[in-house]
C-alpha cells in the first residue's frame, strides 16, 4: 500500500469512528453539563441552548439537597475497607498456594476458580446477612463486598507469585525475617502491579454497586453514592437542572479517576479475558 493511500485509509477510519462515538458518548454528558448550568426557567423555555445566564448555583444546592457529602464518605469507607481487606486476604491465600506450602492448595484454588461459575446468590446472601446481624450495618456491608476482590485476587496472584523466585523466601528467612514481615515488606512491594489491578477492579465494582445497598441497607445515612443518587433521581425527577448537577457531582470523581484507573481496568480485563 502506498504511503498516501495508507494515510487516507487512516483518516477516514478516524473520521468515521469520531462520527459514531462522539454523539453517543460525549454528547449526552456535555448535554447534562449544559443543563446543569441553566436556570429552571431557561431549561423549560429552551433546554438545548447554552446556559444563559450561567448558573453554577445548581451544584451547591444539589450537594446539600442530595446529602451527597454523607453518601460520598460512606462510599469511600465501604470501597476502601472492602478493597484493602479482600486484596490482603487474597495475598495471604495465594502465596502458600503458589509456593505449595500447604497441602490441598490446588483444591482451594479450584474452589476460587468455581467462584466464577456459581449461581446468582443474592437471595441466600440476604437471608445470611439477616441471620448473622450484617443486615443494615456498615461493617456488614463491607464484609458482603469482599467476594469479588477475593475471587479475582487469588486467581490473579497465584500466577503472579509463581514468577517471584522461591530463593527470596529462603534468604529472607535465613536473615530472620518473620512471615508477616516478609509478605508485607518484601512480597507486596514486589507485586504492586498485580495488586493495583485487582484492587481497582474490586474498588470500581464496590463503588458502583447499586443492588447491594438496595438489598442490604435500609437506613438513609448508611447509603453509598449510587443509592443516594438513585433516591435523589426519584425525588427530583422533574427538577432537571438540579438533577443534572447531582448526576455530574457523582460522576465527577469517577471521570477524574478514570485517567488513572482506565489503564488497570483494561489491563485486568484483557489479561483475564485472553487467558480464559
Amino acid at each position, binding site marked *: 500500500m502506498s504511503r498516501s493511500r495508507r494515510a487516507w485509509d487512516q483518516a477516514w*477510519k*478516524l473520521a468515521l*469512528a*469520531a462520527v459514531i462515538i462522539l454523539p453517543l*458518548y460525549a454528547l449526552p454528558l456535555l448535554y447534562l453539563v449544559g443543563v446543569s448550568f441553566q436556570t429552571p426557567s431557561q*431549561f423549560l423555555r429552551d433546554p*438545548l441552548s447554552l446556559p444563559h445566564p450561567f448558573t453554577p448555583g445548581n451544584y451547591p444546592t444539589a450537594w446539600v439537597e442530595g446529602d451527597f457529602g454523607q453518601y460520598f464518605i460512606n462510599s469511600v469507607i465501604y470501597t476502601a475497607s472492602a478493597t484493602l481487606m479482600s486484596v490482603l*486476604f*487474597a495475598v*495471604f*491465600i495465594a*502465596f*502458600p498456594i503458589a*509456593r505449595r*506450602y*500447604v497441602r490441598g492448595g490446588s483444591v*482451594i484454588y479450584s*474452589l476460587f476458580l*468455581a*467462584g466464577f461459575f456459581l*449461581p*446468582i*446468590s*443474592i*437471595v*441466600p446472601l*440476604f*437471608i*445470611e446477612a439477616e441471620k448473622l446481624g450484617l443486615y443494615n450495618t456498615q461493617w456488614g456491608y463491607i*464484609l*458482603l463486598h*469482599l467476594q469479588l476482590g*477475593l*475471587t479475582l485476587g487469588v486467581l490473579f496472584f497465584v500466577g503472579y507469585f509463581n514468577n517471584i523466585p*522461591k530463593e527470596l523466601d*529462603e534468604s529472607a*528467612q*535465613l*536473615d530472620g525475617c518473620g*512471615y*508477616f514481615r516478609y509478605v508485607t515488606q518484601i512480597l507486596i512491594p514486589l507485586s504492586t502491579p498485580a495488586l493495583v489491578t485487582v484492587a481497582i477492579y474490586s474498588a*470500581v465494582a464496590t463503588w*458502583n454497586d*447499586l*443492588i447491594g445497598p*438496595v438489598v442490604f441497607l435500609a437506613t438513609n445515612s448508611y447509603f453509598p453514592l449510587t443509592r443516594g*443518587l*438513585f433516591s435523589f*433521581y426519584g425525588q427530583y425527577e422533574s427538577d432537571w437542572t438540579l438533577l*443534572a448537577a447531582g*448526576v455530574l457531582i457523582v*460522576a465527577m470523581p*469517577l*471521570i477524574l479517576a*478514570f485517567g488513572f484507573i*482506565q489503564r488497570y481496568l*483494561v489491563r485486568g*480485563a*484483557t489479561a483475564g479475558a*485472553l487467558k480464559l
Partner: protein
Amino acid sequence: MTSVGASPPPSVAALPARAAGGRLRPYRTPAALAMGPGVAAYLLFSIVPAMGTFLVSLTNYSGIPGMPVEFVGLSNFANMIGNASSGFGVSLETTFVFALAVTVVQNVAALGLAVLLRNRFPFVGLLRSLIFLPAALGVTINGILWLLIFSPSQGPAAGLLGMFHRTSAFFGSPSLALPLVIFVQIWANVGFTSLVYLASMDNIPHEIFEAAQMDGASRWALFRHVTYPLISSAATVNILLAAVGSMNVYDIIYVLTDGTNNTSTLGIYMFNTSFEGSGDLGLGAAVSVMMFLFTLIVALPLQWLLRRREVSV
C-alpha cells in the same frame, strides 16, 4: 587487616548452625494459618450462599419475619413453570431476545470499532477512552443519563422527535422499552468488548499481513482469512462473556424500567419476586437456579463450538 578476618558478619556465622539443625522450614505453619480469615470469608460469602440458593429454592421462605419456613420440595419450580401467570415464561422469552440481541450486536459493533480504532493517533486514544468510560461510571449514572436523554416530556430525544411532530414514551412504551434497554446495555459494554478485540489484534505479527498483502489479498480477504482466524480466541471470550452477562443482568434494568413494559428478563424477575412487595425468597431462589441451568445450557455448548474454530498464531 587481622581485625576484619577475626569478626565475620553475624548472619554468616549463624547460618551453618541453623542449616545443620534442619530447622529451616520455609514459612509453612504461619503461611497456612494466615490463609484462615480469607478462606473463611470466601466460604461464608461465596460458597455457602451459592449452595444456599439450591436449598432455599426448595422452601417457602417468605422474608416476612415470624413466618414459618417449610420444606416444599419442587413446588416452587412446578408453580413457576406450570402456572402461566407466574411471569416465568414471558421472562424467559424476554431474556432470550435480550441476550441474543446484545451478544450479536455488541460483538459486531465492537469488532467494527476495533477495526476503526486500530491505529495510534493521539485522538484515537481519546475515542478509545470514551467508549470505555461507561465501565467506570457504573449502572446508576449510565441508567439515569439515558433516562434523562429519553425522558418523554423534557428530554432531548423527545425534542428531536417533536421536530417531526412525533412523540414517544420511550422507556414507558411497551414496544420501545426493550430495544432501548438493549441499546443501553450494549452502549455500556461495547467498549470493553472492543478493547479485548483490539488487544488481540495487537498480538498479530505484522509480517503475516505484509505477506498476505504481497500475495494480493483484498481488504475483505485479509480480514476474513487473516485477522478473523487470529482473533477468534478473543471472539470466544467476548461472545461467552456477552452471552452469560446479558442472560444474568438485572441492575441496569432495575434502574431503567424495573422490568415494566415488557422488559422483565429472568434476572429482574428473580429480583422483584424476591425483594419487592411481600417477597417470595423461595421462588426467587428457584428462579436463580433456573438461570444457572440456562447459563450452563447455553455457555457449555457455545464454548465447545467456538473453541473448535479457533486457530493459534
